[in-house]
């Protein structure tokens, strides 16, 4: 027997999406309203930014970063985008097109940085040169370039598209290992300090499924294919495990992460203060670092000296392992 015609909780019109964690279904209009409300709640409750702040959105061409940019502009914030070309073969080329098309269609400013053109390396080459997983050099490169672009451009805050699933997965991994220092820093807002801009995550109250749905409803094209370098990483395994729990107990991911922020993070405030490191300018680029040369400059030196490595060589090795 097939049931037909679930109704929107708000208007009783035909629903387009079921959200078990809210025990409700929504039509397109009221689903979008729910998403906007959740973002506004995150911005206000964590004091992320104000309407006068100059915002830089880190844009990958994926659903989350395009959705958060779209929502912020929709809410009336002034936000520019930053796209970092990672050089991950066809995946990066397709991602760049989605980011550019989104910005062009809305008349938004998109700043572009290319690892290969501007720094002489790409992520597959960095992975091979450092003998580490690609996500390691990818994350390091993006964090550095987001910070640099924000400071160079005079932006008050960097927005990233990290969603509830991302944060719950990171929390899950850190909890499995009781990484107290990482747990102490896992907040929706990282305050500006010592040459680092403020960084915020307005999507922490929304799931990946909800952000993909936002893009479908709003007609936003994004790169659906998974990054070929992420296949098999721990983060995906944690998300899969959490979604198994979520399917049996809707609302578990939100409770896990948001209750951590509400109840546990305050208890770790002392740990945050005691683990704060003394920073000094990198002798090469001037960015704040704990050593003489920052990790990004060390990566640039090592990876740019390495012969370029095609993405297929790195992904093929990961699949076999």
């Amino acid at each position, binding site marked *: 027997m097939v049931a037909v015609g679930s109704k929107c909780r708000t208007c009783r019109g035909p629903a387009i999406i079921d959200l078990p964690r809210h025990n409700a279904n929504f039509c397109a209009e009221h689903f979008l309203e729910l998403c906007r409300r959740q973002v506004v709640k995150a911005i206000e409750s964590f004091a992320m930014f104000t309407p006068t702040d100059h915002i830089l959105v880190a844009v990958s061409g994926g659903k989350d970063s395009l959705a958060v940019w779209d929502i912020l502009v929709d809410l009336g914030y002034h936000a520019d985008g930053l796209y970092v070309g990672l050089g991950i073969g066809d995946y990066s080329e397709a991602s760049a097109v989605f980011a550019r098309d989104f910005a062009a269609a809305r008349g938004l400013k998109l700043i572009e940085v290319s690892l290969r053109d501007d720094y002489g390396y790409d992520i597959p080459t960095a992975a091979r040169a450092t003998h580490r997983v690609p996500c390691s050099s990818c994350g390091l490169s993006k964090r550095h370039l987001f910070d640099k672009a924000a400071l160079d451009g005079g932006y008050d805050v960097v927005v990233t598209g990290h969603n509830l699933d991302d944060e719950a997965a990171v929390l899950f991994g850190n909890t499995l290992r009781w990484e107290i220092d990482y747990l102490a820093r896992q907040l929706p807002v990282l305050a500006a300090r010592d040459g680092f801009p403020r960084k915020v995550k307005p999507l922490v109250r929304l*799931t990946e499924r909800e952000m993909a749905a936002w893009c479908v*409803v709003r007609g936003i094209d994004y790169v659906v294919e998974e990054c070929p370098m992420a296949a098999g990483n721990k983060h995906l395994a944690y998300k899969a495990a959490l979604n198994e729990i979520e399917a049996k107990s809707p609302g578990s991911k939100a409770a896990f992460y948001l209750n951590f922020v509400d109840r546990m993070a305050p208890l770790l405030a002392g740990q945050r203060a005691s683990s704060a490191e003394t920073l000094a300018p990198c002798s090469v680029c001037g960015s704040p670092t704990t050593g003489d040369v920052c990790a990004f400059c060390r990566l640039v030196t090592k990876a740019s000296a390495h012969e370029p490595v095609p993405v297929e060589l790195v992904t093929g090795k990961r699949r076999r392992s």
Partner: protein
Amino acid sequence: MRVLLRNPRREVQLAGRRSVNALLDELHLNRESHLVIRNGTLIPGDAALDDNDEVEIRPVISGGA
């Protein structure tokens, strides 16, 4: 019905009326990790699918953090 799946991209043909949730269960796909789209429009878990429908099952999980 014709069903488009992603990552990797492939198509499957299935016969018989069923709900979206039944389709996902049959393909062993987690409802929290996927959206179902028919003719460019999202459809909820209890929507009925017929033999002549063309649907996309879109994964929503990405690996970066």
